[in-house]
């Protein structure tokens, strides 16, 4: 064989081997679940977690006394507790199920573990940024090995949905935590949930595996691989390439997938809870006159904004509390379409020269920019000249904070959105007077609002809370500082051989994922 022949044959053999070694890739089959999440894990310690994606992993690793149902509602159910009862406005009784065991040899879960887990979140020595989730938690009284009473300093209506059901309510083993000095970053020293921590590779994946100590309902998947992917489009492509079983999609992809779904896949579009609004800094000289702010409220065509930025998939918001939650309003004071004539009249009454120049700040994302452009257009029709300014996330998110300099003085209009959980307290707490210059960038100050917020926070009467929160949203809207936009949507793509378990806001509850029953054609 000549050298040339040898080279040629080697090349052919190499290509053949490469092709043979590259089967039609489809990692997602079998008993391993592959899921995309939007950012990498930094902390899995419940007291230190600060992103939603960490909380979701926490739900799979740990048990809470009570947790959210995975049926898409905000109802809660017993988890580690076999009995849970609110004794009065400040005290909650619990009794643990017997035989819940921590892995790594840390034994059975007891009431002492509950006491340790909850109290450490509010321990000033730990400086937990999540302490606020526990509201006014004072202490936990241990009655016997399995039962105890949680005591609050003052009534806190959101204690169950936010404090106990949330990531901060995850239960740890006191002995295990003490063995690692009282806190950990990624690898828990012990856990008692359906899954246990297997590995974490920075920026690559977190792997959970079935917890051998788990005695609850068996899980359907041996392992869960969670991939942090910043770009939602990469998630879509990875799903189409067969590497993922579950991913969020971008809003613009929903229509594409509706027309042509990837093989053996399903899509679910859920109205989300996050709330978007146009905020107006009422202390800025150009927005001090309420008639100008009201002209902006009436001038913005919310339906047009949703049509352009959310592709018509989401619904107009009537406030900051989404449908299905206590305090949701059936309709806003100002209709979604607004009314250009009313807006023009208000501007005329204000006696300002048109076009009236204002600036609108937005985060540099396609969605926010599109929404801003439509707002620019609709306000342009009624006599405003809107200058758009885009900023990166971290710059934008400190714009109205007094602690970061004098930029707050220059804030005029902005499109903002806040994450939301299953209790209205989580929405209104950012708009009280105490929050002016922190998260309340509209600098909205209203004594009645502050008073109602406190009453609603302490009330356990659902009807009363519903009425109070509706009134609070009316006060927000009447101030002229807010034009509510929408709650957005969560669009999810998953294989048809799995049945995802979801929280009401569309966030996945990994431990509840099941194999779908075989569907006949």
């Amino acid at each position: 064989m000549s050298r040339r022949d040898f080279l040629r044959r080697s090349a052919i053999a190499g290509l053949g081997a490469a092709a043979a070694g590259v089967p039609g890739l489809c990692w997602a089959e079998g008993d391993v679940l592959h899921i995309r999440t939007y950012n990498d894990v930094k902390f899995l310690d419940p007291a230190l977690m600060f992103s939603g994606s960490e909380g979701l992993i926490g739900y799979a690793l740990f048990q809470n006394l009570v947790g959210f149902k995975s049926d898409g509602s905000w109802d809660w159910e017993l988890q580690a507790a076999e009995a849970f009862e609110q004794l009065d406005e400040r005290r909650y009784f619990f009794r643990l199920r017997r035989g819940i065991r921590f892995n790594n040899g840390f034994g059975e879960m007891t009431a002492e573990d509950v006491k340790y887990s909850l109290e450490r979140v509010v321990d000033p020595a730990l400086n937990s940024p999540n302490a606020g989730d526990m509201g006014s938690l004072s202490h936990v009284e241990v009655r016997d090995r399995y039962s105890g009473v949680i005591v609050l300093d003052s009534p806190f209506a959101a204690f169950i949905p936010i404090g106990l059901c949330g990531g901060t309510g995850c239960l740890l083993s006191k002995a295990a935590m003490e063995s690692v000095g009282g806190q950990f970053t990624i690898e828990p020293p012990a856990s008692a949930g359906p899954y246990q921590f297997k590995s974490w590779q920075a920026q690559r994946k977190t792997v959970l595996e079935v917890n051998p100590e788990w005695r609850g309902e068996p899980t359907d998947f041996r392992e869960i691989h969670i991939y942090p992917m910043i770009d939602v489009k990469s998630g879509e492509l990875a799903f189409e390439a067969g590497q993922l079983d579950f991913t969020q999609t971008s809003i613009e992809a929903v229509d594409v997938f509706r027309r042509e779904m990837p093989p053996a896949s399903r899509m679910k579009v859920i109205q989300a809870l996050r709330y978007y609004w146009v905020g107006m800094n009422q202390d800025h000289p150009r927005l001090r006159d309420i008639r100008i702010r009201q002209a902006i409220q009436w001038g913005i065509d919310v339906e047009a904004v949703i049509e352009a930025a959310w592709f018509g998939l989401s619904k107009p918001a009537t406030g900051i509390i989404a449908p299905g939650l206590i305090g949701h309003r059936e309709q806003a004071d100002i209709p979604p379409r607004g009314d250009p004539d009313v807006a023009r009249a208000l501007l005329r009454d204000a006696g300002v020269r048109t076009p009236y120049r204002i600036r609108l700040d937005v985060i540099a994302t396609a969605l926010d920019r599109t929404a801003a452009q439509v707002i620019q257009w609709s306000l342009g029709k009624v006599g405003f000249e809107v200058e758009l300014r885009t900023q990166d996330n971290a710059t934008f998110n400190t714009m109205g904070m007094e602690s970061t300099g004098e930029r707050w003085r220059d804030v005029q209009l902005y499109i903002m959105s806040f994450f939301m959980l299953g209790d209205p307290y989580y929405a209104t707490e950012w708009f009280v007077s105490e929050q002016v210059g922190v998260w309340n960038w509209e600098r909205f100050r209203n004594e009645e609002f502050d008073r109602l917020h406190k009453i609603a926070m302490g009330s356990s009467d659902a009807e009363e809370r519903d009425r109070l929160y509706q009134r609070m949203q009316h006060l927000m809207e009447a101030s002229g500082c807010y034009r509510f936009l929408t709650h957005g949507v969560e669009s999810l793509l998953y294989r048809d051989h799995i049945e995802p378990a979801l929280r009401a806001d569309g966030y996945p509850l990994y431990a509840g994922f099941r194999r779908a029953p075989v569907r006949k054609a």
Partner: protein
Amino acid sequence: MLGFIARRTGLSLLIVVLAVSLLFGMIHMIPGDPASVLLGPRATPELRAELNERMGLDQPIVVQLGRFLGNAARGDLGEDVFSNRPVADIVLEQLPFTLMLVFAAIGAATLIGVPLGCFSAIRRNSLLDRIAGILSVGFIAVPSFVVALYALLLLSVELRWFPAIGAGETGDWASMAHHLVLPALALGLGWVGYIARLVRASMLEVMGENHIRTARAFGLPERVVIGRYALRIAILPTVTILGLGIGTMLSGALFAEIVFSRPGVGKLLYEAVMTRNYPVVMGTVLVTTVFFVAATLVSDIVNALLDPRLRTQGDRR
């Protein structure tokens, strides 16, 4: 030669210090607050102040810079604001993935581009030269992200030959190489065309010179004339460009790391900037700057080794 290396090394160190100082100032000039990102919406002013103090952000920028450079000289790049892990560990954990990507891309581009350029120069104005020319310009003209997306759609989504995301299983070289193909293609394809055009132009110039005519007159085989006498000189500008190219690819790696969801310093830096995680930003910038300057230094030294005139120029001054 040693004097040449010493001079270049000194200059390189100066460039690193200047570049890092400049970036340090720029990063601290942009608004944004790591305490807000790290501590979440419910952080108290006391918590914020404590974090700022721990990060040294309560000090004047000059003091912060001096402290950073001093610590960096001892190999201490500080600690990640979030996890308190040493930044050096975090960066070094991610660096191999970026280096693998960059070297795979530049290596493949060189292996394809240099022969393509030589071939075009030897077959000047032939049909194949014209086809190679069109291909080269086409490769240069198509933006990397377009290559990335089409490669993903065709080779990953449609044909499922290559994975769309990830870097493969650690320790499994076949898996890692498999995951490297598409990102390296996206990053390196433009360089194939660039190197091919550069080598062609240099070869055409060199092949017209006297020593090539002399070599041919001596009856040396054309393979020897091209390989030993023409290419050795014609490759010099390419070596310089490759040094710079590695630096450019370090920045280009960011898009590949995000699109293909690969780990790497580009993605690390992006996330650190977004969260104003200053120690990680500075550590990553320092490491990539050192790497870029080192690549340029190596290309200078290789050039000097290939062309003795370069290493004596400095001595004559």
